[in-house]
């Protein structure tokens, strides 16, 4: 019994080692880079084994969600080549057979599906919890029914057109009013029987400035 346990204990790391070799990682694994300080600044937490456990659990959750296979467990996620950067490689083994590795494509699809959930578990973003090789799905652009600029344009044009119409109408009214005045004064002068254009000018000038003397004489002499 003890011999079996010792054998298993010594064999376990030996079994794990080939998994973390370069060829296996390249074919089946993904590199993860985590930048907690960049994302959270002062509120950054320490990366330790418990956080690693959470990571493995979230990846297992992602696999469960994608494959709808509820047998995936934390032990199926293998992590290797950890560095101080906080970057590591991870592989996913099939729950039925620990020797069999889940193909890259499936892992990628699973991560993509649950990317948001994985990010929020760590309070990170697509850029700070980086899966090297898995492109983030970009948020759809905000689409408006009416582009906002057209609305502002409409408002401005409305104000301007209202201004133009007001000004043109006021000029028009002034003209018709002064035409009416002109007709009235013409009738009045026909009745009074006064002289010509210059005379009318004198009249209106005199009305404006009675104390001026005879400015009309000066003008007549010039002409």
């Amino acid at each position, binding site marked *: 019994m003890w011999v079996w346990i010792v054998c298993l204990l010594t064999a376990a790391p030996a079994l794990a080692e080939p998994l973390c070799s370069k060829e296996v990682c390249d074919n089946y694994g993904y590199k993860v880079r985590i930048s907690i300080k960049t994302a959270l600044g002062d509120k950054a937490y320490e990366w330790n084994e418990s956080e690693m456990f959470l990571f493995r659990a979230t990846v297992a959750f992602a696999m469960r969600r994608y494959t709808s296979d509820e047998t995936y467990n934390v032990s199926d996620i293998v992590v290797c080549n950890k*560095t101080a950067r906080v970057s590591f490689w991870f592989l996913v083994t099939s729950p039925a057979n620990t020797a069999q590795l889940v193909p890259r494509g499936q892992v990628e699809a699973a991560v993509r599906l649950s990317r948001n959930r994985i990010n929020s578990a760590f309070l990170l973003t697509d850029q700070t919890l980086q899966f090297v090789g898995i492109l983030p799905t970009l948020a759809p*652009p905000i689409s*408006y029914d009416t582009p906002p600029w057209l609305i*502002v344009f409409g408002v401005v*044009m409305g104000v301007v057109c209202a201004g133009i119409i007001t000004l043109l109408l006021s*000029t028009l009214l002034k003209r018709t009013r002064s035409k009416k005045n002109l007709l009235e004064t013409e009738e009045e002068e026909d009745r009074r029987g006064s002289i010509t254009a210059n005379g009318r000018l004198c009249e209106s*000038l005199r009305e404006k400035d009675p104390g001026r003397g005879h400015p009309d004489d000066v003008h007549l002499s010039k002409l």
Partner: protein
Amino acid sequence: MKLQIPNPGLEERIPSHAELEELEEVQARGRPQWDNKAQYMLTCVGFCVGLGNVWRFPYLCQSHGGGAFMIPFLLLLVLEGVPLLHLEFAIGQRLRKASVGVWRSINPYLVGVGISSTLVSYMVGMYYNTIIAWVMWYFFNSFQDPLPWSQCPVNENRTGLVSECARSSPVDYFWYRKTLNTSTKIEDSGGLQWWMVICLIAAWMVLWVCCIRGIETTGKAVYITSTLPYVVLTIFLIRGLTLKGSMNGIKFLFTPDLNELLNPATWLDAGAQVFYSFSLAFGGLISFSSYNSVHNNCEQDAVTISIINGFTSIYAAIVIYSIIGFRATERFDDCLSGNIVALLNAFHLPEGNITESNYNEVLQSLNSTSPEIIQALSLKTCDMQALLSQGVEGTGLAFIVFTEAITKMPISPLWAMLFFIMLFCLGLSTMFGSVEGVVMPLQDLNVFPKTWPKEALTGIVCLASFAIALIFTQRSGEYWLALFDSFAGSIPLLIIAFCEMIAVCYIYGIDRFNKDIEFMIGHKPNIFWQATWRVISPLIVLVIFLFYLVSTATKELTYIAWNPESDNFPMLETMFYPGWIYVIIFILSGVPALIIPLVAVYKYLWKSCCRSDNTHKKSISTVSFFTSEMLTLETSDR
């Protein structure tokens, strides 16, 4: 030695001092008048202070030795700007006509000068208002968060950003693709862009509503359009100074490099900037001052407006460079953190091991231990000086550099709105002068029947300008605008200004002009004015003109184009103009310049063939000046 070209018949063409006094008292509602002095000053300040103060002067200042540029600028402001301004104010106030009328009164052979300045005002107004249309487009697009130029749009399958945008930058993409939808060369017209057409309609309608009754309406509009830019500049100054890195920009702007003073290009650029900044030779200033009372102190006005213009240029330069300093610092920080992340990733070092402070030492030590890895990373060189001197001018400053800086500020839509409304007001107040410089001479030339109301005149001018300005709404519109900017507003203005000075000093007569000014403001102009009007200012303008002529004629004419397919993308590609462009250039620069002698020759031929009618015409012209003033008095009574 006072050189005086004989000028027969001058006395009959111009009102005498006694007649001016009469007109002053009688003329209550004859020619349009300013409601108060403030309106006149604000209108002139608005006309002079324009987009060039914001986006040309700071660039010149920084590229020609920073603080040292102040020396040629201020010197030429005093020797060239102020005298020319005083001359235009005085002659307009004395002869009480728009530009065509003024030159016709001085000598009928000089009508060409007036027509030329009208033509230049028209052409410059066309493209200037298109810039205002672009500003309005950006203003309309500022009412959303996030701003449309802050991020690249996503491509169809949502895997990445649009390629053109990813390779350049979101601001470049928004400007060249979303706004202009620019083609790759000027020959590719590409059709009219509907969003630009409606913005252009909006710009011309706003201008029309402000100019619809001449100075009656513009006088009210300038209370806002001339004062708002200063308010916004102050807000931006306060905002800018609180941003990180702004002092880097200001220090960079004003660091003097006295060696630049030995470079003749510095002096020429300073002279050209002073000249164009004062909006001289457009005819608008003459027209505005002709509405003044006869005894208005035009000397004081000229000095005041020059000081305000110079101060505004320097103030705007401080504000712009504080924001540019902030942008350069942000870019530098981004560049550095990108390099740091690359190093951390490559060497698997924990975060925080490399910071901005120890970056250089760490890089050196890593380079000594493993240079191949460093090579493979191809780290970018982050150079603050290079980023700061990426100082652009013109539309590049406003629509690319500054908009990028705004996206990095908190509450960006607010700053974007403020910035574009400032540019809008600056441009609009300059356009008032431009429209005035076209409408009033056309009235003087009796192109329109006298019975037509002012509204119709301004409407027709705006409509005609809009129709031709549709060229600028094509896909190749920006290249056309750059063409107009280089040729329509540069050489002809220098020729007109030179002719103005010669006409006033030597054809009208400097003696008569001095007496006029003594009559108007109470004292004779002193030795400074005499020297500058007669010798110094014409000489400076002549030198600048010759330099421009030589440099334009000798070099191969090129323009820069946005071509996503080019090798150096996102750098702009230098292209040669096609052959037929030279015809357009001739129309833009040559026609206004040639009109001056051609009209003189035409008048001479017409006079010599109709010599018998001359004496009759003389007596009629005596009568006609006075009756025309009286008739306006009568018609306004109605």
